[in-house]
């Protein structure tokens, strides 16, 4: 993974820059000593590490704006960071860039139930929002598995998902407004408590932009009333095909479950050994279907889903009768990652999305690749929305095995794109999938996306080296080749 070559002049000025910045962010908000910068050297993609130039931890929007202006005026790169849980290296520091940690923005500013929204600072954790409102009967819907640690600012940057996306949407569908700071130090607001934002939907553009367009300093999220109840079915199938068929049939019947998760045999085995959730061991695919809503609806749909599953050859079927039992069904699935971590020294989590009906094909191709690379793979699958998380098992201490794993992972993602899917469903491109972007996009596509970045960040100072495999200067991207006096397309019908 090649990153932009660090500017040695900037690195040489580290102390001076830190001094300037401490005038903006006084106290202990500027970290320059190496051992204190060390905890920030990586995010959730721990295979990559770089010590940042300086860590800055602002506390107010004004400080963020002043830091951004300073960086713009002095051509210093900025890498924004929330809790650092990104699995794609979105918050990987740059040796010649400041790391802008937003952790001190940890206040919930307003709970507005009549308008069903909350105004929060970006450093509030995802689960922190739900915790703040659950006693009043509300929750915040997107629930990435890192929700205990990940921040809402990071969720906006990555457009994070979770297991309930099919019914409740991703972050982008659950954010009503943001305040954000541009690299010019301007503080802008998009959206608010009203439902549709005016003008261009720059709120939508900012969501999922991976810290390349600006720094979010406040978020207005949509709150939902808690469903009356939730129940789950745990269904075993003799094959991945049968499991996949059942998923399709449930949706074809007009049912959109709150959650619908599938695991393949290796994942079932690992999860059961770890969590003792009582999963059936005689099946090849396991489906968890959760239905939430009013009691009358849930009971009714449980029966309908049971009928569908039985008709699709389910070999085992259990229905949660208590809240405790429902949570047990989930315990194995939720522990799938650590469970896999226990049967292998290391694992690498992929994140492609595919059209659901391609699942059996993709799984069988993946089995072939597993043999080819001599690496085991376990699959957990957000079956409702087609988001696949293959976990490749490897040992980083074996020379060459990480490289082999990455190559295997890249082949899986290429396969996802080949069948009509995408490189990443919820983890982001970051540095991890950056060089695979041409699998999905033409050079023109990527250049156009970078032109959009230029509209926000003409010097390319915000999080460079992420998302785009090739960096272009904005002046070069803006150039147009126009052939004056060319024959105006004689073939086009004119009226």
């Amino acid at each position, binding site marked *: 993974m090649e990153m932009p070559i660090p500017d040695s002049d900037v690195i040489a000025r580290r102390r001076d820059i830190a001094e300037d910045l401490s005038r903006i962010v006084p106290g202990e908000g500027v970290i320059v000593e190496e051992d204190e910068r060390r905890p920030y050297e990586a995010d959730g993609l721990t295979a990559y590490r770089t010590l940042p130039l300086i860590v800055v931890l602002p506390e107010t929007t004004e400080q963020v704006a002043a830091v951004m202006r300073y960086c713009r005026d002095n051509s210093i790169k900025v890498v924004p960071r929330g809790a650092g849980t990104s699995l794609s290296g979105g918050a990987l520091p740059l040796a010649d860039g400041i790391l802008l940690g937003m952790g001190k923005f940890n206040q919930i500013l307003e709970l507005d139930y009549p*308008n069903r929204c909350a105004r929060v600072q970006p450093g509030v954790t995802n689960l922190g929002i739900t915790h703040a409102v659950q006693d009043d009967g509300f929750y915040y819907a997107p629930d990435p598995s890192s929700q205990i640690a990940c921040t809402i600012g990071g969720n906006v940057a990555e457009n994070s998902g979770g297991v309930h996306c099919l019914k409740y949407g991703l972050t982008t569908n659950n954010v009503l407004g943001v305040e954000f700071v541009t690299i010019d130090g301007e503080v802008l607001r998009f959206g608010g408590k009203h439902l549709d934002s005016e003008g261009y939907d720059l709120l939508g553009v900012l969501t999922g932009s991976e810290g390349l367009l600006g720094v979010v300093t406040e978020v207005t999220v949509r709150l939902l009333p808690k469903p009356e109840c939730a129940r789950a079915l745990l269904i075993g199938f003799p094959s991945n095909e049968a499991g996949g068929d059942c998923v399709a049939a449930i949706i074809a019947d007009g049912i959109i479950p709150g959650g619908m998760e599938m695991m393949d045999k290796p994942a079932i085995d690992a999860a059961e050994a770890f969590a003792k959730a009582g999963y059936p061991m005689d099946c090849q695919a396991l489906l968890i279907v959760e239905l939430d809503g009013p009691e009358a*609806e849930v009971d009714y749909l449980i029966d309908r889903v049971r009928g569908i599953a039985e008709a699709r050859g389910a070999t085992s079927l259990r229905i949660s009768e208590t809240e405790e039992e429902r949570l047990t069904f989930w315990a194995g699935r939720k522990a799938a990652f650590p469970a896999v971590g226990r049967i292998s020294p290391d694992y690498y989590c992929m994140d492609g999305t595919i059209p659901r009906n391609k699942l059996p094909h993709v799984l069988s191709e993946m089995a072939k690749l597993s043999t080819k690379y001599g690496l085991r793979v376990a699959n957990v699958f957000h079956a409702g929305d087609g988001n696949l998380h293959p976990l490749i098992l490897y040992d980083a201490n074996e020379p060459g095995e990480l490289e082999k794993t990455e190559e295997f992972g890249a082949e899986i993602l290429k396969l996802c794109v080949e069948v009509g899917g995408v490189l990443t469903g919820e983890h982001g491109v970051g540095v991890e999938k950056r060089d695979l972007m041409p699998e999905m996009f033409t050079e023109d596509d990527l250049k156009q996306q970078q032109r959009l970045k230029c509209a926000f960040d003409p010097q390319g100072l915000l999080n460079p080296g992420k998302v785009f495999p090739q960096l272009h200067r904005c002046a070069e991207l803006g150039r147009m080749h126009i052939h004056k006096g060319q024959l105006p397309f004689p073939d086009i019908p004119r009226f």
Partner: protein
Amino acid sequence: MTESASTFRPENDAQLIDAIAWANSDLKPLELVGSGSKRALGRPVQAAHCLDLSAFAGITLYEPEELVLGAGTATPMADILAVLEEKKQELAFEPPDFGPLLGRPAGEGTLGGLLSSNLSGPRRIKAGAVRDHFLGFDAVSGRGQAFKSGGRVVKNVTGYDLSKLLCGSWGTIGAMTAAVVKVLPRSEKTRTVLVRGLDPEAAVKAMSDALNSPYELSGASWVPSDLTTASDVGYVRDMESSVTAFRLEGFGPSVEYRCGKLRADLAPLGETEELHSHNSLAFWAWVRDVKPFGQPGDERVVWRLSVAPTDAPAVLARLHEITGAAAFLDWAGGLIWLALPHPKTGAEELVRGALRTGGHATLIRGPKSLRAAVPVFQPQSAAAAALSRRVKESFDPNRLLNPGRMYEGV
């Protein structure tokens, strides 16, 4: 209607690219048109030529079990809705048909027009807006280059989400040729509970409480008595008072259960009435398509205000200080539809002045002279306007695509 000297009708991507490349060489602005059903909405476009995109029509992908539909952007919405109907599916944001509101026949709109305007119906409060169901597209930029974004899957964070940018950009960013949208099963049953006689304040409070209950409302609207008299639903007319409407949709047993619970909750507010399938559908189509202001011969100016739902009563009170104002609420108060007999000024200053705590107002219907004279879309702060201009220019540096349709210079 058009001042375009001539119309180009490219039949494929290559011709479209040629046309826009040529427009760049001669700096000739283009007015993008699908079926032209929303041409009377927005600032008047001063374009040298009309770019007719009607050749990009036809449904290319529909997999009901995958909840996905792809089509050329000029595909008539009527075709798309018919195909979905057959499989008991729908576009959950409830696409409105503003044909009659804008003085044209119903049923003319295209997929591209829907996406470019991001105008959603009553179910927006539950299911999200057009933009939330727009998964991917193919387009040609103002630079004359093909580009795409998104795809056919719901969960996708690969690259910038340009679908959001294109949605509601009124053809100022790129000429879209094909799009993919998320579709969902349509409800088996619909019921609407009506409460009579509430004033806006009581209605907004009741709608807010109902939305905060676990009964999953998919519509919440308030219509004053001067408008209910024109309803095409007998029950609504007969109320002879304002009507606050609460819609429940879903599976039969669930709707019945929720309907009972909701009616019990609403009982303290007085008499309630229930609309079943046909009447419920008719009522919400009336709200969705703004039929109270869309009758033949109605030439009043129409504004659409998006506000925080709880601000609605205060905003409404200020709007009613304008002579001849008529208004009703959708989205539990979050959307105010306003008609005014002021074709010269649109009472623009008073309308926007009524928004004191955020939100925005869009002039949806008005004579061309008015649309040229007052900002049709909510004016932005200097910094936001400058950013919007830079965003536009990053796709269309010579500002050739629908120039000025949204904002002057964009």
